[in-house]
């Protein structure tokens, strides 16, 4: 009991630190570049971050997961690939929009994954929406089933046949693909 309480205080301090650093960045109340310093913003920040921490400290970090640090590093390594995919997605859509014949052939596809954790499913759903030609419609978290709207055959096959993205997300969250 005491141990979980101690853990709770540590968690609240961590959440408070994150919120307060974010407040300092956003309000720019200590600015070493031009020597600006405004105490009223600093005190208001402590009050606001404190109230938000008391109300919602269990939302930001829900529980201590396994290998959180390793997963975070793998997620950071995944981001550049995702950015490149976003870049390609925009050129893909721009090409389909501006082509005189408009090469689209929309379809709805369904596929199962073995991903189960909330973070993995959310990451995959957002990645699907950001990458070329596909938008997630619905997820069944129990079965790991995805319902996806694809704008043509090629992006649909990229999900159904290649499974590059699914494997990458599974690697990030250390689950079986």
């Amino acid at each position: 009991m005491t141990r979980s309480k101690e853990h709770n205080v540590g968690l609240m301090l961590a959440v408070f630190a994150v919120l307060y650093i974010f407040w300092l960045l956003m309000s720019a109340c200590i600015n070493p570049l031009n020597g600006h310093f405004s105490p009223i913003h600093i005190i208001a920040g402590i009050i606001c971050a404190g109230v938000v921490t008391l109300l919602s400290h269990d939302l930001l970090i829900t529980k201590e997961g396994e290998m959180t640090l390793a997963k975070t590093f793998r997620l950071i390594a995944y981001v550049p690939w995702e950015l490149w995919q976003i870049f390609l997605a925009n050129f893909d859509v721009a090409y389909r929009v501006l082509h005189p014949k408009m090469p689209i052939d929309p379809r709805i596809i369904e596929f199962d994954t073995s991903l189960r954790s909330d973070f993995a499913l959310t990451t995959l759903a957002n990645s699907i929406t950001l990458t070329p030609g596909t938008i997630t419609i619905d997820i069944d978290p129990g079965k790991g089933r995805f319902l996806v709207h694809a704008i043509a055959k090629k992006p649909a096959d990229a999900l159904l046949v290649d499974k590059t993205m699914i494997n990458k997300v599974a690697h990030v969250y250390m689950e079986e693909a």
Partner: protein
Amino acid sequence: MFSIINIIATILIAGGAFFMVTGVVGLLRFPDFYTRLHATGKCDTLGEVLVIVGCMVYQGWSFITIKLFFLMFFIFLANPVGTHAIMKAAYLTGLKPWKKGEERR
């Protein structure tokens, strides 16, 4: 004021504007709700990000740059979620997706 920074910032913001315009053209050209969402949802991401990066380059190193960076981060999180929410709402109300060869709606 024709410094290199200004030229890079102008190119980036013009690129962003190009993608936003493409999104609007797609909204007008595509045949049904779902495909229009493809055009707007995707072109917005890179369009907004290019405009923001252009502003960051123009602004130089200051607190505003950090704020713009966080803005970009939140757009990356919020944009796919919003697109997905609109699409799911349309799907649940039973709107039939357009198939190739049908008339545009």
